[in-house]
């Protein structure tokens, strides 16, 4: 035994001895100054330049996301498992409460709830974090030059990673309940996910910049998110609102206002894809409409609308960010 292990050790040691020292790092001929990239520092930076600089810092973005994940679960035994445990427990609690305590008639209510929560969780966890991110990272903002948008964007990136973990939980639940999602609507859910990321990024960038000047923003965001949650059909059925509005005869324009909330179409799309059942029949209560009866075409239209709005908001947010970014280092 001892002999064998000795031999095992000595072989690579010999190999190491035989190796040449690493060659001096490849000194490519230094480019002449003519083809060197140049950068202009001034108070006015064009949007295209900003976007290019963000793109060039994408590796930094990856490292920042990795840092967030590592720091968050550092020195914890379960580590990243916590990010799945948390939604799983929430799911269980909601399931028990709504199914057995509140007697919600919706079948498989936990899945209905969870498909909406996927969307909402990303939005509602990223925004408070990104509002304070510039202030929290004052140390590097004051000392290192990099596109500052990366900071809120890395919060969005972290949120997307967590969304991914929650999707794994979702998949496990689907398997556990032997429940099949509506695969035909999966591309639409993907579309909604793109919308969600763009929209969240827009809010994140805007809020992170404004929070440098008004530190209320991060608190205000927390409060507003509490209220906002009840404005989207996650816990209740979209049709509840729909039916009430029909009774009021002001159906269309009130409905439009309700749908203007850009998160609502995203939630609906996720529910349509993962929950899938538009109309279910409940024993003793007859047929019961759970989801909106919109066609796939209408979903695409809605989501396209949200995408356009999201991109516009994103450009606007970057503009605002660029305007006030110049004073970050002194305001912090």
């Amino acid at each position, binding site marked *: 035994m001892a002999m064998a292990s000795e031999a095992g050790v000595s072989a690579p040691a010999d190999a190491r001895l035989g190796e040449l020292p690493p060659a001096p790092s490849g000194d490519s001929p230094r480019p002449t100054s003519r083809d060197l990239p140049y950068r202009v520092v*001034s108070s006015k930076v064009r949007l295209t330049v900003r976007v290019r600089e963000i793109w060039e810092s994408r590796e930094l973005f990856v490292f920042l996301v990795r840092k967030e994940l590592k720091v968050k679960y550092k020195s914890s035994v379960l580590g990243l498992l916590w990010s799945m445990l948390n939604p799983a427990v929430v799911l269980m609690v909601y399931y028990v409460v709504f199914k057995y305590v509140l007697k919600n008639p919706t079948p498989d209510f936990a899945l209905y709830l969870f498909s909406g929560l996927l969307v909402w969780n990303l939005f509602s966890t990223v925004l408070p974090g990104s509002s304070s991110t510039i202030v929290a990272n004052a140390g*590097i903002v004051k000392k290192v*030059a990099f596109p500052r948008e990366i900071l809120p964007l890395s919060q969005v990136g972290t949120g997307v990673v967590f969304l991914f973990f929650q999707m794994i939980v979702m998949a496990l639940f689907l398997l556990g309940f032997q429940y099949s999602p509506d695969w035909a609507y999966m591309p639409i859910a993907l579309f909604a996910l793109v919308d969600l990321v763009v929209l969240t990024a827009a809010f994140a960038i805007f809020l992170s910049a404004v929070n440098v000047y008004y530190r209320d923003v991060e608190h205000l965001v927390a409060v507003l998110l509490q209220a906002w949650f009840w404005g989207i059909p996650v816990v209740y059925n979209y049709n509840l609102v729909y039916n009430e509005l029909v009774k009021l005869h002001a159906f269309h324009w009130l409905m439009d206002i309700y749908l203007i909330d850009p998160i609502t179409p995203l939630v609906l799309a996720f529910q349509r894809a993962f929950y899938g059942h538009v109309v279910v029949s409940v024993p003793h209560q007859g047929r019961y409409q759970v989801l909106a009866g919109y066609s796939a075409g209408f979903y695409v239209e809605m989501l396209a609308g949200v995408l356009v709005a999201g991109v516009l908001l994103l450009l606007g947010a970057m503009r605002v960010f660029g305007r006030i970014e110049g*004073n970050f280092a002194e305001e912090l």
Partner: protein
Amino acid sequence: MTVAIDVQGVSKRFRLYHQKYTSLKERVVHGGHVPFEEFWALEDVSAEITAGQTVGILGRNGSGKSTLLKCIAGILQPTGGQVVVRGQLAAMLELGAGFQPELSGRDNIYLNGSLLGLSTKEIDRRFDEIVAFAELEQFIDNQVKYYSSGMYVRLGFSVAVSVEPDVLLVDEVLAVGDERFQQKCMDRIQQFQRDGRTIVVVSHSPDLMRDICDTVLVLDRGRKVTMAPAGEAIRIFRERLIESGFATAPAAPADEAEQVEGAAPVEITTRRRVVELLSASASYARQDERNYIETGEPIDFRVDFDVSTPVSGVQFKITLLNERGGIVFSSTSSGAASGMPLDVGRGCATFIFDSMVLLDGRFSVTVEARDSGGVVLDILDPGCDFEVMNPGRAVGIVGLPMRVEVLPPGSGELPRAAATAR
């Protein structure tokens, strides 16, 4: 010659808030008006820095030198004007800025490196080099929060210099670590200079500037005073300091305290002195247009005295002291111990220095009169003072006369080196 950094009429305005209102409520309460004063940290500063130069930005505290550096780095945006930087830029404003205490040294190298603009591939390639330079091989997988401050700063410097930028900005961070590590840092900076990279250093230490910079930009209250070769610029900087009263007037209370503590206070009899030193003064060329001499120029110190009783032997002693009170030079008027006999009346003694070899600094002159037995008859402390500026590149205390002869290879037989005794 191409311009690496073009600073075009850069101005930077700061708002100094009397009290910072960062909450919405406070802003509403004050009607949206937050009282502030405008303060121009930089006013219309222009400078062209050619590629390969090492440029210092010199100025006293609050002169805007760090603000200018931050504008070049792109951390601050100028209120007016613009900066064009050609090539990859790295700024060392604070070592280890952005280190995450919870992460390991390894993770922090990647995070910090990418903050400074390195790609993952480049970091992979230089990783071992970075760790070796920081001398942290054993600890690289420990969390940074367990590092000593020295290790922390070493890692920060090591990552920063691994960027190999075309333009390097340094803000007084060179004095890190122990002496040996400092030497390594200086070597790395000099390596950068040899590679033809552009370096901008901010400091308020003229010695460092003279040591490493070709050109120095002097700032005063946000305005450019001059941009000139190092020696010349430092001279102008010191002139400015004197003009604005910063370099003169050594703190009187401290001096008194020192005197009290100082050993062997000189006893001077209260009765009428045999020899009274009346005044001392310095005289040098162009005294009416400037209040300093340059290294190597002649200077005379004259002492007027009054003799009330004939004395058999008097010696005059001059002592030059630096700003900290250390003796730089001290000597007596004559080699003879007995001194020279003096009759009643007034006279003067002049100490003539043909070449004042001291380098930069402000020096005070103390003059004593002693009798042949070494008893102090009178003392003028301080008698007068003078200022020396060094237009050249030498650093240290004295400018020793020196020249360099280099025999390049192939210039014939080399003279035999003297045997070195060890």
